[in-house]
């Protein structure tokens, strides 16, 4: 039988079938953060349950912490952070907290620590757990009740999903990054287009990406509704497993972690790499994107009254007029960070644009490296100096920061942000804040220009 990579991963982790159609699936490794885990631990307490296998879990602080200092910025966030530490101490779980040199955004920390390998199953109370699919591992986000379940049983109740393959074939033009590839995929498949599906990305444009790029692609797969994203493991994956603190400590053998050549998928999409341009979002859903050379849509582009109304609503929230050119959109803020684009490779790309240039007057530009280790590496490479000389604020602490603005990095009502993050939802970066998603290099170019701009014009 020809099986997809997804089916191989599910088969390898199935503990048993349950009477009503679910199965129990084994979780090799589970990561927690401070804001989706407290009620899971209190659930254990209420039910007087312990943690099944404490050494298979890791907790990090990343969502609510300040990035200006390693001290919590207020009492409420301190409570969440202290609560997580106390829960980990009580149950014997590894905790990478503030001030720990291994702290950072969970999905940046895990690969950096060498805690993901092909063939693993990883769960986390965070939707962007799809990131680990870049390694040929099955990673998916869970809610707090499921966090409790995996702590207590090391398993989850699971239902096999349908499969989808998105093939991006052919080379991409210079200036087109992994972020543009996934934004294009989200545009084509649609914001809920992969609901109920595990998506495998394939094709030469995907295979040509380095691990950082593959992680960017799998990270944002949740924006098309995919519960899991996968890229087959290859030599690039194997090379990326070496040299980390946990390297060589585990290995998942027994299968080749790729889809069999004749495996069939429930749905297929094919995109030509040559059709992808640097993209920006203009609206409030990640699929509302256009090439940087294009104009914001007009009502006449849509047929149904519902779509016209949705356009109007998005434009009103975003403070844009129909048909206005992407490059005429002026920004207040530039933000480089998040689990999508805050790795060393992302910082290098942005620094290339910033070298010898300066942030436009009136633009506030911030960069928050994804982890403490990334920050140190960037500083050693001289990237910090480039960012700071260009007028960027280099934050000394790692975290999600302005990706979801749960700390004190909040955009104001009406503030327009060029952002390397993954979600442009209403209110995501602050109540009334206006988010334009794009690659880190495009954010850097926008910061320098004061408006959205084509990165390909920066030589």
């Amino acid at each position, binding site marked *: 039988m020809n099986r997809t990579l997804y089916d191989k991963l599910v088969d390898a982790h199935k503990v048993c079938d349950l009477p009503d159609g679910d199965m129990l699936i084994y979780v090799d490794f589970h990561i927690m953060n401070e804001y989706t885990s407290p009620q899971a631990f209190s659930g254990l307490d209420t039910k007087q349950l312990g943690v099944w296998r404490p050494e298979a879990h890791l907790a990090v602080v990343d969502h609510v912490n300040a990035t200006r200092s390693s001290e919590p910025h207020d009492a409420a966030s301190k409570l969440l952070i202290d609560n997580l530490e106390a829960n980990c101490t009580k149950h014997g779980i590894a905790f990478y907290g503030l001030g720990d040199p291994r702290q950072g955004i969970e999905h940046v920390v895990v690969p950096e620590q060498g*805690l993901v390998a092909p063939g693993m199953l990883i769960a986390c109370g965070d939707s962007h757990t799809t990131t680990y699919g870049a390694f040929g591992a099955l990673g998916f986000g869970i809610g707090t009740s499921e966090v409790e379940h995996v702590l207590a049983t090391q398993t989850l109740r699971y239902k096999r999903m349908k499969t989808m393959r998105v093939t991006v074939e052919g080379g991409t033009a210079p200036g087109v990054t992994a972020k543009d590839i996934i934004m294009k995929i989200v545009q084509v498949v649609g914001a809920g287009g992969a609901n109920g599906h595990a998506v495998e990305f394939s094709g030469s444009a995907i295979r040509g990406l380095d691990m950082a790029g593959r992680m960017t692609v799998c990270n944002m797969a949740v924006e098309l*509704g995919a519960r899991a994203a996968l890229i087959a493991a290859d030599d690039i994956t194997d090379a990326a497993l070496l040299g980390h603190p946990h390297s060589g400590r585990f290995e998942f053998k027994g299968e080749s972690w790729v889809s069999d050549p004749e495996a069939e998928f429930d749905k297929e999409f094919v995109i030509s790499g040559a059709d992808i341009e640097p993209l920006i979002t203009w609206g409030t859903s990640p699929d509302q994107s256009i090439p940087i050379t294009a104009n914001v849509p007009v009502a006449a582009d849509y047929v149904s009254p519902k779509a016209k109304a949705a356009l109007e609503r998005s434009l009103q929230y975003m403070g844009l007029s129909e048909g206005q050119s992407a490059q005429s959109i002026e920004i207040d803020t530039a933000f480089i960070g998040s689990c999508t684009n805050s790795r060393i490779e992302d910082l290098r790309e942005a620094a290339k644009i910033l070298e010898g240039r300066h942030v436009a007057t009136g633009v506030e530009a911030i960069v928050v490296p994804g982890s403490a280790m990334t920050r140190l590496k960037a500083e050693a490479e001289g990237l910090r100096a480039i960012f700071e000389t260009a007028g960027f604020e280099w934050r000394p602490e790692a975290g999600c920061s302005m990706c979801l603005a749960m700390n004190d990095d909040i955009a104001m009502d009406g503030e327009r942000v060029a952002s390397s993050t993954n979600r442009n939802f209403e209110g995501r970066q602050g109540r009334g804040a206006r988010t334009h998603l794009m690659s880190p290099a495009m954010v850097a170019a926008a910061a320098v220009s004061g408006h959205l701009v084509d990165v390909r014009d920066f030589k």
Partner: protein
Amino acid sequence: MTKTIKGIAAPLPLANVDTDVIMPKRFLITITREGLADGTFADLRFDNAGQHRPEFTLNQAPWTKATILVVGDNFGCGSSREHAVWGMRQLGISACIGTGFAGIFYDNARKNGLALPVVSPAARDALLQFASNPSGAEISIDLNSRTITAGETSVPFEMDDATRTSLIRGRDDTLDSLEYAGAIRDFEAGLSDGMRISVIK
């Protein structure tokens, strides 16, 4: 044991309503599940001064008493925050009828007794129309027969067996799964040493 959910339904036709809209992050800084009713749809329900926005459906009679929502496509997309579901339950919502829901939201709903019947786009549009009528007529969702009845109309809905059983029995998945502890131990016994993660503290 609820087998039928009955109540006034409110129309919420927007597509892609994400969990940031259902539960803005300022309500997430908490270590309990309680006190989330006011946070639910907060930026739609209240203006910056904390006053009710009269134009929002849930602020208008008869929908102030709604216990069912009829929603747009891809409701619940975005983050994994279960707070969104806790808040909706605390606001008194027992069911959301839509054409499709984001995966994590769907699973979170099941754990908290929020029913998410999935209907065809045509049925959803008919139910939206029914719900938009301010007469206050109730919709009824029969979990056993997987049927929604609104006035003269009856439409089938989809819901997987496990979710339906959970909703009807209100079981605790964690305790239920621990009855399979033996199977979990057997599975672990079959793992090679290299497959047992041990995180460096």
